[in-house]
């Protein structure tokens, strides 16, 4: 067997399904569906209004099909189940009451939730299909004034804050998928870091899609008050199904004066098979608002899964001297497609943004960077630096860069650099001549290529990301 054959035969290791009884609502979407979801969650009237407004907007919107560099068959939105939750006896108060099957599921995913085994230094909110099943270290965080809980709980317990900020960064009519999410979102994570607090541990949400018929529509809201600091991690996996599942999430970040939010994602949804059958449609809206002076929002993403990725984590730099960063590695193999990048909207004076994007494309995959840098008239002395590098593996993969630059203030400075390279036979031979196997040589080259981004990731995530890229590229060479 050739190296390539050995490699391609390795499996996506998160592709299994948990056998658990779920409570699902009938498939399809109507105003009644929206009301039903809201009712299931015993939501207040204002929340239902928010959903209905979004739903009515959505009815008049179109899928963004013409401008992204992606292609996919028609999605029947009436064929999706919009709410699926593992059956529970009653609202759980402690982890002991969580279904052991769910605990085992997350154990198997490497995210132990039980008190004894919890990851040190990382608080986890575990989301399974439509609901959050457990959040660790809640009490410890509370002592510092940090609120970290499921979105549903936040709507019940912290309505004031949620109401104030929900939809303030991504309005319900922002785009087709954001409107859909705003209408039907079922759960997600909520974080609130009060004034002057440096969050004592990493916060993270682990998303697991289990049901083959349901979509996942989660909502994340992070609010960092004046002078606070938080680092948030997000991980995702899904079973292998030969159907496509829709994942349409919305993430909103708000940073007030002198606050800093660091948001890292390692996305490893199921990507479909080599022929492009199955896999997740990852259509996600992520946006942060640097509302206060000297605030900072930093996005780091490692996108390796999904059949299609459509995602542009963005920053609105409203406060003077605020800083936006976007570090991205997007890897596509086989038939995967990615159209991903960022938007940096400079509103305030002396605002700065940095964009580092690394796209890797192998097999027949198509990988596009799409990024907007917009300097508004009042953004005196705004600065942007953008670097987009693409790496191609094999001769059938594609890479594109679509930069949009709109400058309305003469005192600003915008730089854009782009490059495209290939893993050459000479480079591989050189490393192999030193005793390094072909697999390891490819990993080494790719990790070198992505180094500027990996340096931004928290330690454990960086290790995970490095390993993941190696796995994902198996069979790409040979």
């Amino acid at each position: 067997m050739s190296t390539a054959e050995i490699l391609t035969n390795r499996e996506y290791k998160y592709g299994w399904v948990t056998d658990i009884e779920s409570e699902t609502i009938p498939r399809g979407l109507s105003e009644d569906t929206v009301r039903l979801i809201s009712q299931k969650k015993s939501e207040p009237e204002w929340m239902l209004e928010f959903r209905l407004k979004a739903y009515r907007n959505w009815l008049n919107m179109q899928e963004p099909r013409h401008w992204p560099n992606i292609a996919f068959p028609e999605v029947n939105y009436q064929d999706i189940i919009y709410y699926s939750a593992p059956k529970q006896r009653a609202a759980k108060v402690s982890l002991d009451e969580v279904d052991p099957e769910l605990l085992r599921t997350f154990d198997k995913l490497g995210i132990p939730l039980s008190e004894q085994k919890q990851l040190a230094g990382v608080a986890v909110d575990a989301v399974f299909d439509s609901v959050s099943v457990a959040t660790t270290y809640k009490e410890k965080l509370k002592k510092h004034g940090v609120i970290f809980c499921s979105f549903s709980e936040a709507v019940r317990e912290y309505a004031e804050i949620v109401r104030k900020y929900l939809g303030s960064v991504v309005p319900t009519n922002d785009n087709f998928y954001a409107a859909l999410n705003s209408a039907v979102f079922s759960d997600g994570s909520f974080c609130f870091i009060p004034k002057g607090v440096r969050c004592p541990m990493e916060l993270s949400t682990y998303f697991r899609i289990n049901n083959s018929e349901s979509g996942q529509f989660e909502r994340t809201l992070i609010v960092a008050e004046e002078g606070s600091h938080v680092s948030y991690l997000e991980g995702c996996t899904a079973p292998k199904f030969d159907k496509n599942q829709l994942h349409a999430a919305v993430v909103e970040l708000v940073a007030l004066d002198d606050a800093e939010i660091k948001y890292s994602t390692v996305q490893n949804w199921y990507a479909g098979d080599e022929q492009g059958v199955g896999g997740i449609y990852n259509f996600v809206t992520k946006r942060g608002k640097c509302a206060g002076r000297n605030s900072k929002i930093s996005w780091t993403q490692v996108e390796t899964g999904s059949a299609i990725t459509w995602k542009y984590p963005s920053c609105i730099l409203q406060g003077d001297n605020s800083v936006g960063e976007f570090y991205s590695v997007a890897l596509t193999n086989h038939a995967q497609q990615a159209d991903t990048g960022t938007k940096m909207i400079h509103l305030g004076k002396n605002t700065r943004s940095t964009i580092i994007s690394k796209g890797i494309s192998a097999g027949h995959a198509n990988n596009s960077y799409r990024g907007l840098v917009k300097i508004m008239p009042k953004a005196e002395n705004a600065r942007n630096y953008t670097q987009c590098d693409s790496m191609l593996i094999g001769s059938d993969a594609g890479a594109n860069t679509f930069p949009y630059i709109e400058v309305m203030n003469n005192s600003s400075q915008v730089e854009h650099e782009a490059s495209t390279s290939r893993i050459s036979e000479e480079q591989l031979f050189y490393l192999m001549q030193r005793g390094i196997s072909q697999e390891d040589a490819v990993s080494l080259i790719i990790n070198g290529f992505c180094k500027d981004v990996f340096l931004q990731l928290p330690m454990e995530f960086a290790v995970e990301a490095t390993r993941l890229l190696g796995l994902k590229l198996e069979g790409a060479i040979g």
Partner: protein
Amino acid sequence: MLEIRNLYASVDGNEILKGINLKVNKGEVHAIMGPNGSGKSTLAKVLAGHPSYEVTRGEVLFEGKNLLELSPDVRAREGVFMAFQYPIEVPGVSNAQFLRLAYNEKQKHLGQEELDPLEFKDLLKEKAKIVEMEASFMTRSVNEGFSGGEKKRNEILQMAVLDPKLSVLDETDSGLDIDALRIVAEGVNKLHDPNKAVILVTHYQRLLNYITPDFVHVLSAGRIVKEGGKELALELEEKGYDWLKNGSVAAGAK
């Protein structure tokens, strides 16, 4: 240690090597000389297992094993090293990271102890002295932004770390100023011992002023056309290669 028997090799359908015979014993230093296009570098690359070169006939035995059956990485772990004429850049990968991975692969292959980053750092520090390289080189990306001389010194550093049985140096002297040439040559000499062998592939005699070969083989049009001791190199320096081109095939190459 190494025995090449009637070796034919081609690249893109063009036959470059046309029946090479060569025997290299432990402790020996062999120089392969010849004009441009004679097949010197091809021979080096075929020994290392470059995928673009196809061996069409003949065999190569290394320590009794059929070398041609082994993939390049396994050949390396078995103790075959090639210093590249044009060392390749690997952006974002530090020299130390790269070398430790290579070192540990070999150790694993030989059933010997692998080193953690700290232990390896100590080893690297020692080895770097051989080619007078500063510690700052270890944290820099492999060959990226290195001058020609630094790249060649880096090749010899890799040789020092990997401690190969057979080292094939492909035009290691090309593009070197006199100081770098001295450092590189002294490095090779320091690393040589009676259990190892070296094949120097070179166009010019210059390198042989520093590294004394036991045997000199002259390649022309894919065959060894003349063989001799170190004095043959001097003769070539004086007369050039033209007089050999139409000459008879040397006795050694049947």
